[in-house]
C-alpha cells in the first residue's frame, strides 16, 4: 500500500488519504473487516456455486443447472453409490454421536458442577484433556485400541460412534457448565426448600431451565460430528464406512466432478441449520438472563482442539 502512495499518480494517494483519514470512522478497519469476510466466505460460496454448474468443470462456469449434480446425472449425489453411501454414513454417524454424547455429557456437566470432590475434579481434568489433545493423537490411540485390544469391536461404524461420541462429549459438558453458571443455584434450592426431592428439583426446575443448553448441544454435536474427519477416517474400514469429509479428502485433488461440491453443499446446509438452531437457543436463553451479543459468541468459544 505504501508503494502506491509513493507513486506520482495522485489517485492512490488520495485513496490512501481517504483510508487513513483520522477524522472519519475508521475506514481502514472497515476495509480490513470486509476484506476478511470476503476472504473467508467467498471461496466456500464459489464451491457451493459450482455444485450448480451445468458442465463438468470445477474451474470454469458453464451455465446454471439446479439439479444435474444433485439428482439427474448418473454421477450425481442421488445416483452415485459412493456419494450416497457417504452421505448416509455421515448422517448415521452424527445422529448416533448426538444420541450418546449429549445425554451423558449433560449429566456429566451437571454432576461435576454439583458434586465437588477429588474424583469429580479428576474426571473433569481428563475430559478437558480429551478436548484439547490434538485430534490425531486421539485418533491413533483409538485406532490402536480397536485393532489391538478391543478387537471384538474392531474398526467400522461402531468404533467411529464410540470414538466420536467420546470426543464430542466435551461440548455439552462445557455448554451446560456455562449455562449453570448463569442460572445459579437459587431456583433449585427454592424448589427443595418447598419440599421437592433432589430428583424432582432436577426434573421440574433445572431441566426446563437447561433446555436451551440441551438444544444447543444437539446442534453443535451434530454439526461438528458431520464435519469430523480425523477420527472418523482413522476408524473407518473400506468404502462402506467413508463419510463425506473422508470422500472430499480422498478425491479433492483428483479432479472430481461438481457432484462432490453438491455433496459438500448438502452437509454444509445441514450443519449450518443445526448451528443456527443452537445459536438461537443460546441467544434466547441469554436474552432472558443476561443478554448481549457476547453470550452468542460463547458458542464459538468452546472450540479448542481441532
Amino acid at each position, binding site marked *: 500500500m505504501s508503494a502506491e502512495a509513493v507513486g506520482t499518480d495522485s489517485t492512490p494517494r488520495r485513496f490512501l488519504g481517504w483510508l487513513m483519514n483520522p477524522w472519519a470512522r*475508521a475506514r481502514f*478497519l*472497515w476495509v*480490513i473487516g470486509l476484506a*476478511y*469476510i470476503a476472504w*473467508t466466505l467467498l*471461496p*466456500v460460496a*464459489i*464451491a457451493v456455486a*459450482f455444485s450448480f454448474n451445468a458442465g463438468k468443470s*470445477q474451474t470454469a462456469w458453464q451455465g446454471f443447472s439446479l439439479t444435474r449434480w444433485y439428482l439427474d446425472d448418473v454421477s450425481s449425489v442421488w445416483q452415485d453409490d459412493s456419494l450416497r453411501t457417504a452421505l448416509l454414513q455421515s448422517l448415521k454417524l452424527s445422529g448416533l454421536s448426538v444420541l*450418546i454424547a449429549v445425554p451423558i455429557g449433560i*449429566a*456429566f456437566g*451437571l454432576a461435576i458442577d454439583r*458434586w465437588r470432590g477429588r474424583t469429580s475434579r479428576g*474426571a473433569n*481434568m*481428563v*475430559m*478437558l*484433556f*480429551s478436548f484439547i*489433545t*490434538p*485430534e*490425531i493423537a486421539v485418533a*491413533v*490411540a483409538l485406532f490402536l*485400541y480397536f485393532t*489391538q*485390544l478391543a478387537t471384538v469391536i474392531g474398526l467400522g461404524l461402531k468404533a467411529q460412534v464410540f*470414538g466420536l461420541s*467420546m470426543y464430542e*462429549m466435551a461440548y455439552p459438558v462445557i455448554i451446560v457448565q456455562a449455562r449453570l*453458571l448463569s442460572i445459579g443455584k437459587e431456583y433449585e434450592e427454592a424448589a427443595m*426448600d418447598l419440599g421437592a426431592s433432589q*430428583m424432582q428439583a432436577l426434573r421440574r426446575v433445572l431441566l426446563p431451565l437447561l433446555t436451551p443448553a440441551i438444544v444447543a448441544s444437539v446442534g453443535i454435536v451434530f*454439526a461438528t460430528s458431520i*464435519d469430523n*474427519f*480425523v477420527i472418523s477416517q482413522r476408524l473407518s474400514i473400506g468404502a462402506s464406512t467413508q463419510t*463425506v*469429509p473422508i470422500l*472430499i*479428502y480422498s478425491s*479433492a485433488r483428483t479432479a472430481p466432478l461438481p457432484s462432490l461440491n453438491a455433496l*459438500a453443499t448438502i*452437509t454444509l446446509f445441514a450443519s*449450518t441449520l443445526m448451528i443456527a438452531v443452537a*445459536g438461537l437457543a443460546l441467544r434466547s436463553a441469554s436474552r432472558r438472563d443476561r443478554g448481549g451479543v*457476547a453470550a452468542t*459468541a460463547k458458542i*464459538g*468459544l468452546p*472450540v*479448542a482442539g*481441532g
Partner: protein
Amino acid sequence: MRSKLGRGGYRLQLFWPAFAAPATVWLLAFFVVPFFVIMAIAFGGLDPVFLTPDPRYDPLDWQFGSFANVLSHLFVRESIYQQAFLRTLAYVTLASIGCLLIGYPVAYFMARHAGRFKTAFLVAFIAPFWMSYMMRMFAWVNLLQEEGYVNRILVNIGLLQSPRLWLQGKPSTVVFGLIYGYVPFMILPLYAMLDRIDRSTLEAARDLGAGQIQTFRRITLPLSRQAIFAGCMIVTLPMFGDYYTQTLLASTRGTSMFGNLIVSSLESSLVNTGASLVLVMIALLMIPMVFYLRSAARARELVA
C-alpha cells in the same frame, strides 16, 4: 426438612456420582485406556518375523529401546524425522503469526467499530467455524488449480506472467492454508477480550492526552495480552497435529509435516513407530496444553 435430608442422606451422596458415571466410563474406555494402549505398543516389543506389534500391558515389562530409537532420530541431523519436525515447527510458527496479524485487526474492528452491524459481523465471523474444514480446503483446491480463478485473476491483472502451480508442493501454500483454516479460532478469544475492555478506561487515557496509537499501545495491547496467548495456543495445538492441509494443498515429501509422519507410519504398518511418534508429539505439547488449561480456568474464574 431435617428428617428428609437425613432419610435421603445416603442416597444423596450417590446422586451426583451416578450422573457422572456413564461419561466417566466412556472417558475411561475410549480415552484413558486407548492412551495406555499407545504406551503399551510404543514401549512393547515387535514380532521379529512379521514385525507386528507385541503390546505389553504390564508397565514392569516395558522396554524403551524402540522409543529411544525414534526419539534419537529426531536429533539426527537431516533425518526425515528431524526435517519433518523442523518443518512443522516453522509452518506452525509462521501460520500462528499470520493468524495473529490477520485476526487482531479483525477482532479489534469487530469489538470497536462494527457498531450496529456487530451481530451481522459476528455471525459472518463465526460461520467459518462451523463449516467443514475439508470443504473449506476443498474450495481452495479448486481455486488454486492451474486454470483456477486465482491464477486467472493474477495473470489478468499482470501480477503473474504465466499460471503458477500452487498445489505442487509449495510451502507458502501450506502456510496459507493453515492460516485460512485456523484464523477464526484466533479471532474469537481476541474479540471476547477486546469487547470486555471498559470504554471508560480508553476515554480516560484519551482525556489524559494519549493519542490513538499510544492508547492502543499502552492500554489495549497490554489488556489483551492474555487473549493473544490463549488464541496462539488454540491455533497452535491443532495445527501441530494437522496433516490433511498439507496433503490437500501440497502432497509432496518436501512439505510433509509431523502428522504426516504419524499417518504414513501407521499406513505402512510401522505401528510401533507411529505410537512412539504420537507419544513424542504429546510430550512436546504437554506444556502448552497445561498452560492453556490453566489460562482457560483462570478466564472462567474471572467471568464468574
